[in-house]
């Protein structure tokens, strides 16, 4: 039998019972729809998180003081003040794989501007920090090497700080007092929004590292050193370079543990995505089960259909249909049911992903591969679950089938 006629015959017998065909497809529609929606939303939220994390900075390595994992008696992470400005200088002078090196000295302080005041984080950094951390200056200027050398009392403030201290005004050129030390606001940062961990990246004040260290801080504690590697593939090499340089600077004997730790972005990304990944996997497997149930629904209906249409099968066999023709006809019917169901399911799933996504503020990623896989999968489900009933139909004996009441 020709393909066109096979498909025509299959379509005709499906249309003879439109309600039942529709209900059968419903299982497939729900199954495929939920898989598509969940995967789209899962990938979307993962992309959101990755976007947030890469907004941290490109090829970022963060050196933190801390005991190593293997030490005998260990202080807590960051409990030892092992990083200093000398370390920063070493890295900056001798590093070959670094695009930028910047210390981070943190002081939580009360800021006063005229009659307003606000509590924020003041960060002492190098001029490269802007580039390392992907910050941008919205208005005014960032400070340079000269300001760092002279411990200048200049500051660049984040959007949140600007909003709290200078509502409706241009803060550039204004004066603020940080722990009673007067600073000149030379610029305002562009907004960066929330970090992956949920903190406000705009509630920040950046000032020259030396100014913060010596005028506001204790004069020695560098909280962390931010390093950006020249490229992503140099991340590992840059990491070992940091280790070598800092071990030399700290005069650590071979075998002695590192007294610092290096965290990189991938580590942070992995941490954040593993959570959503697990969720997606969990929900997808639930959706997968519903797909399976949809497939079993198809098998069920096809079995009923074969019994109900025994006489029809008998007629077909009597006028010369080969067992294979009957087998193929029922397989095609099952495949049509599941492919149509799958197609409607894909549309439903995309609609749901879009609707839920905009409702929850999550982006949904539509992966074309996903759709191809869904289509193939539904066809396979149709053929797999259609095979047993089809086989049953094709094994009927013409006389028995014709006699069937």
């Amino acid at each position, binding site marked *: 039998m020709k393909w066109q006629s096979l498909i025509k015959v299959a379509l005709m017998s499906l249309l003879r019972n439109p309600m039942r065909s529709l209900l059968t497809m419903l299982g497939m529609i729900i199954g495929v729809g939920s898989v598509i929606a969940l995967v789209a939303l899962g990938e979307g939220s993962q992309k959101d998180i990755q976007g947030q994390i890469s907004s941290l900075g490109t090829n970022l390595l963060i050196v933190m003081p801390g005991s190593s994992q293997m030490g005998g008696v260990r202080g807590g992470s960051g409990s030892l003040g092992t990083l200093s400005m000398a370390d920063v200088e070493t890295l900056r002078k001798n590093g070959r794989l670094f695009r930028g090196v910047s210390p981070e000295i943190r002081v939580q302080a009360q800021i006063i501007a005229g009659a307003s005041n606000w509590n924020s984080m003041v960060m002492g950094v190098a001029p490269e920090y802007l580039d390392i951390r992907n910050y941008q200056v919205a208005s005014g200027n960032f400070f340079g090497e000269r300001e760092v050398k002279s411990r200048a009392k200049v500051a660049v403030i984040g959007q949140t700080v600007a909003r709290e201290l200078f509502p409706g005004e241009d803060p550039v050129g204004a004066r603020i007092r940080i722990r009673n030390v007067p600073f000149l606001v030379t610029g305002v940062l562009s907004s960066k929004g929330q970090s992956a961990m949920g903190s406000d990246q705009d509630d920040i004040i950046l000032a020259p590292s030396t100014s913060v260290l010596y005028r506001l801080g204790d004069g020695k504690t560098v909280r962390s050193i931010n390093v950006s590697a020249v490229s992503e593939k140099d991340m590992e090499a840059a990491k070992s370079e940091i280790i070598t340089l800092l071990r030399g600077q700290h005069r650590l004997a071979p075998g002695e543990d590192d007294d610092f730790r290096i965290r990189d972005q991938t580590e942070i990304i992995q941490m954040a995505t593993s959570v959503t990944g697990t969720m997606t996997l969990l929900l997808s497997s639930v959706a997968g089960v519903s797909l399976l149930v949809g497939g079993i629904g198809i098998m069920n209906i096809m079995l009923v259909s074969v019994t109900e249409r025994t006489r029809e099968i008998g007629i077909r066999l009597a*006028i*010369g249909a080969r067992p294979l023709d009957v087998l193929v006809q029922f397989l095609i019917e099952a495949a049509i049911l599941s492919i149509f169901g799958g197609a409607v399911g894909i549309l439903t799933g995309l609609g749901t992903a879009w609707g839920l996504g905009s409702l929850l503020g999550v982006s949904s990623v539509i992966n074309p591969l996903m759709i191809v896989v869904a289509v193939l999968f539904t066809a396979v489900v149709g053929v797999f679950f259609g095979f047993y009933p089809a086989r049953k139909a094709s094994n009927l004996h013409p*006389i028995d089938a014709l006699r069937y009441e």
Partner: protein
Amino acid sequence: MKDGIIEVRDLVKTFSLEDVQVHALKGLSLTIRRGEYVSIMGTSGSGKSTLMNILGCLDHPTSGTYLLDGTAVSGLNRTQLAGIRNEKIGFVFQGFNLLSRTTALENVELPLLYDRRHRIGNPKKAAEEALVRVGLGERLKHEPNQLSGGQQQRVAIARALVTQPSIILADEPTGNLDSRTTQEILALFQKVNADGMTLVMVTHDPDVARYAERIVELRDGLVLRDEAVIDRCKAVLELPPAAKENLS
């Protein structure tokens, strides 16, 4: 003597039920020549349908040989039998056996869709011609439930004719019809036979049997009587003028 289009020798068919064995055919032999029109008669249970099903390649004999148009049928597998049914045999059933919710045209076209050798070029056209031939040229788009019993049987005959088979087998084709529509069918059969088609028709009605040229009577799975019809009836003559027009 013309060559035998059907030759069966020592045909035995035994049905095994749970504890009894039913011997439906007990070594029956029969030859039917090309172009012949044969009635098969016999009381209920004498084995007529069993014989027809074997002749129609719908069933296997328990033993015995069957030569159809030169082909030894015993020993063919299911797929090959399907091919024979499609190409060489047109079967007409007592209960019409049309596909419901399917138009007359599609019903008649159906066997051509299963013809792997595509012997007939344009299935739709051939189906249409077959329906015109049985006088249903105006009823192409009608579904079985919109047709009378006689019309349904004529659709079934068109379906049997459309593949240009070697032989038409009809098992009590008029069993479900009133006398007037029976005449229509008999007239059609005589016309088809006059065009050269071999016909085997089962009936338990002696009046119906007399429209054939030869009557074979079965009893208990064997041939009891096999003789030519002397006072053969001409169905066309008994038809009302309108129906006659339809058939010519």
